[in-house]
């Protein structure tokens, strides 16, 4: 299985390559990709240089243009697709039907991957993208069990990529409006969930209060690990009591699931975290490279302890092993 690693900056890309990535994914410094954070991402020139570096190490670069194009501003997204192809991207990661159509017509032969933002979670939906636009790989939403992934793979004629580590969206990706509700901005359109411009932290007497727009997302006691101020992982008071209404602040770590994912026929394993530092990328990529090497050698798969890197300092295998709670 291939190891697909994140890079928010050229320096992070070089670290990912050195740490053992088979491919690195990244995006331009604008609203065309779902990690449009301040100070992050690549200029056109940086992308060109980064691709040349990665290719010199036999590592592929996948460029995410995976937000949904804004009406009246299509040229921004079209230019991103054209420039990524021109820079030598090994694949484009797209979600928007119109952009898939544009890329397939304008750049026939360019390898296209379907972003997790498209939320294609069943064989019929995936077949549509494969047959209509020639999509070669689909990034599966983080809502499927391994049994369901195996069933999808049996019924489709394209490669599959699944997330194995990092931030965990618990909603149907590309459809979630929680961030929009609180701030008017979302990963789907502006490329940012819970934008930093709307985040406030306040700490007093050991208690940390996190706010997003007009909403208090959480109050962390002095002995609690902190988390991102996202509505889906907020702690709220409702008629059912006070607690985590949707999901607790946890991150995905599916290292122990790798044998099952390989048996299911998964092509590639994806690490989330383009917004994270070089230290995160080096630590996580090296750990998963070691695990994959052990798996290929038929040795027992041991999970590296990466919990210090994770939101809430807690990990889960997510939907890969569904249990009742």
């Amino acid at each position, binding site marked *: 299985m291939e190891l697909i690693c994140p890079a*928010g*900056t*050229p*320096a*992070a890309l070089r670290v990912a390559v050195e740490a053992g990535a088979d491919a690195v994914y990244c995006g331009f410094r604008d609203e065309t990709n779902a990690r449009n*954070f*301040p*100070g*992050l991402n690549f*200029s056109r020139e940086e992308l060109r240089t980064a691709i040349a570096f990665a290719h010199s190490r036999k590592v592929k670069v996948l460029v995410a243009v995976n937000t949904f194009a804004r009406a009246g501003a299509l040229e921004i997204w079209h230019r991103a697709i054209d420039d990524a192809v021109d820079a030598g991207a090994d694949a484009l990661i797209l979600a928007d039907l119109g952009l898939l159509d544009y890329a397939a017509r304008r750049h026939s032969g360019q390898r296209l991957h379907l972003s997790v933002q498209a939320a294609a979670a069943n064989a019929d939906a995936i077949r549509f993208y494969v047959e209509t636009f020639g999509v070669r790989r689909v990034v599966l939403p983080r809502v499927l069990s391994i049994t369901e992934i195996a069933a999808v793979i049996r019924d489709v004629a394209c490669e599959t990529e699944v997330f194995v580590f990092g931030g965990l969206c618990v909603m149907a990706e590309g459809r979630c409006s929680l961030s929009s509700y609180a701030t008017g901005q979302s990963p789907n359109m502006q490329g940012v969930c819970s*934008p*930093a*411009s709307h*985040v*406030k*932290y*306040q*700490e007093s007497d*050991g208690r*940390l209060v996190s706010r997003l727009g007009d909403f208090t997302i959480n109050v*962390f006691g*002095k*002995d*609690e*690990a*902190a*988390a991102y101020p996202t509505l889906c992982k907020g702690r709220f008071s409702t008629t059912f009591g006070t607690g985590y209404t949707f999901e607790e602040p946890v991150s995905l770590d599916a290292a122990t699931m790798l044998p099952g994912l390989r048996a299911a026929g998964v092509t590639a394993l994806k690490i989330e975290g383009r*917004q*994270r*530092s*070089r*230290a*995160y990328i080096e*630590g996580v990529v090296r750990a998963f490279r070691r695990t994959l090497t052990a798996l290929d050698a038929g040795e027992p798969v041991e999970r590296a302890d990466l919990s*210090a*890197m*994770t*939101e*809430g*300092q807690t990990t889960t295998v997510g939907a890969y092993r569904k249990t009742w709670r």
Partner: protein
Amino acid sequence: MPLSNSTISKVPPLLAMAMRPLPLLPLQPPLALLLDSVRRRHPGIFERLGAHAGKRFGLRPTDLPFAFVLEPRLVRPRVLAVRHLPADLDVRVSGPLAGLVGLVSGELDGDALFFSRDLHVEGDIEALLALRNAIDDAQIDLVGEALSGLGPFKIPAERFVQNWLRPAAWN
């Protein structure tokens, strides 16, 4: 307040106490030299900072008796050592010295330090993220640049500092 499982090294309290009466003025020339060196070697920082380069950042090592005010402007950037952070800052960041240096040097992850409550942030989070991302991309050898004036003593001094900066769990 960091969690009890924090592995970030702290300046020994006795050493911090001994530093308390020292004047801050002698810190200014080496700080200015360090910032000038960073500005010359890593001009890409300012492009990534964009409009946030005009913001004022307060950096407070929680285990030292002084703090810093950083103004990362493209023209005449400035860093000042102060006893207490002024009120009119855009961003305030505090944490152990080793955590702050580790962030700049790329040895530590800012989000992880935030999750473990080692790092405390207040103010304009957008500006803070821009600074964090710009610095992470710049690959600044902060310790090496800060000790560059030590001549033949640079290498042993650097080794000592790097060893101290390394999180306890790594030793």
